[in-house]
């Protein structure tokens, strides 16, 4: 699960981290991926491998429409619009019983096999989740070195100054948003096949969005490996907390909240950038020592 969370956090980071504009409603794309895969498989027996792709395509279309309408909005309004959008989809999933099974959710039939993306052991899921994580992180590494990555950061920092240098800000944001949505959708599909049961309050909930966003923010906004650091520190810690103090529910939520507050208060960009800065400063100090 840690791999999966890392992949999701990195997917989210692909747009929001590099651009600095928080898409809080990103769970909507997780939900689209999960539902597309689960429904196609449970109702029509279509292989989840195809379901993943269909979910991705669907997410891409939705991202184009939603992105086209909301990406031009300024900071807070954009954040609010993403929340509204996720809420609408969640409500749709609950009320459109005929299609989605309503709040009862979708139960995925258990028939192990590669084509069905279902296994009796956990290892194959871990491998898939690991591969997913690697692909998304690799995409982020590539983004950092590409024209799109430079443009995205520039637009995030100062849209007017970026446009003056020839950056089409709407197109830049839309492209990154779309890629981010598709990656998130893939993660949703994998999650559905792993959990074998999905319901709106799980795959589309704000809590879910917030969880992988927190991992990315804590680890390092706009860094390829930040989500990895964030997840591999926080996910085990929350699991231990949950395990050792089962009577205090929500303790891990409290911890994540605290971390977020610390990050925001100190205006750092998360654990990884803070570490880097620390190392840089040490190096600089060492250099100065040698000079003097």
């Amino acid at each position, binding site marked *: 699960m840690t791999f999966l969370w890392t992949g999701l956090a990195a997917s989210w980071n692909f747009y929001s981290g590099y651009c600095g504009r928080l898409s809080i409603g990103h769970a909507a794309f997780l939900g689209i991926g999960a539902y597309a895969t689960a429904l196609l498989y449970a109702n029509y027996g279509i292989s989840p491998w195809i379901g993943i792709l269909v979910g991705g395509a669907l997410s891409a279309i939705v991202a184009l429409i939603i992105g086209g309408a909301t990406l031009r909005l300024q900071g807070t309004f954009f954040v609010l619009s993403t929340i509204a959008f996720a809420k609408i989809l969640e409500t749709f999933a609950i009320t459109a019983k005929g299609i989605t099974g309503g709040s009862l959710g979708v139960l995925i039939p258990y028939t192990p096999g590669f084509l069905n993306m279902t296994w009796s052991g956990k290892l194959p899921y871990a491998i898939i989740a690991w591969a997913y994580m690697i692909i998304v992180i690799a995409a982020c590494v590539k983004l950092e*070195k*590409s*024209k799109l990555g*430079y*443009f995205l*950061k*520039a637009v995030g*920092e*100062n849209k*007017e*100054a*970026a*446009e*003056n*240098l*020839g*950056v*089409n*800000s709407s197109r830049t944001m839309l492209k990154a948003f779309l890629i981010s949505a598709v990656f998130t959708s893939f993660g949703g599909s994998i999650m559905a096949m792993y959990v074998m049961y999905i319901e709106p309050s799980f795959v589309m909930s704000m809590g879910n969005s917030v969880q992988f966003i927190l991992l990315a923010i804590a680890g390092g906004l*706009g860094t390829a490996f930040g989500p990895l650091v964030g997840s591999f520190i926080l996910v085990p810690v929350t699991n231990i907390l949950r395990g050792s103090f089962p009577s205090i529910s929500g303790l891990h939520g409290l911890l994540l909240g605290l971390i977020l507050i610390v990050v925001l208060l100190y205006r750092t960009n998360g654990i990884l950038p803070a570490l880097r800065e620390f190392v840089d400063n040490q190096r600089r100090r060492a250099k100065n020592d040698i000079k003097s």
Partner: protein
Amino acid sequence: MILRADAITKRFGGICALDKVSFEIEEGSIVGLIGPNGAGKTTLFNCINGTLPIDDGRIYFCGEEITNKRSYELARLGMCRSYQIVKPFRSMTVLQNAMVGAFCRVKSRKSAQEIATEALETVGLYEKRDEKASNLNIGESKKLEIAKAFSTKPKLLLLDEVMAGILPSEVKVMSKIVRDINESGVTIILIEHIMEAIMSLSERIIVLNFGEKIAEGAASEVVRNSEVIKAYLGVEEE
């Protein structure tokens, strides 16, 4: 002729920031744009380069009408500006800042790096290439503004007070940078308050006051123009 403005008008609510301003810019020249504070100089840049829509008039660039085109389209056509209030991408390094501009012309990171490096050398920021842009002082930030814009390989560069707020000793350096860029074939419009610099750099000068063009001509003529003296000293001549 690289740029032609035909009766540009821009209003902000009640005030008329630009009132039917017309001028032509010769290719390859350096033209000074002066005027008292609030005269509308920066607004004129905003209108020419598509940052603000104009209310009336037409603008032509390289013979093509560009009225109300977006600034990123104009950057690709070869027009770029620097900001009076600098707008660096703070979290990026100096080199990366310039590379954003270079990506306007090339796709690969390597070529962008080459173009950006050249631009940094031109403005004398090469040594600082790996610094975060947020660590630069005001003079360096102004140079970075120029380097970013120059990296887009412009035909026309609009420089807004790149010498304001820098050390007097740096003014000479900055003048040389402007001249070097001009000699590499870039036409330049220069907004500046430092008369010495503007007199020595520009062949022609345009003077704005309260949104109106009140004078235009060779540098030596313009400073003797009575309208201009009036605008600057704010007194009636006997």
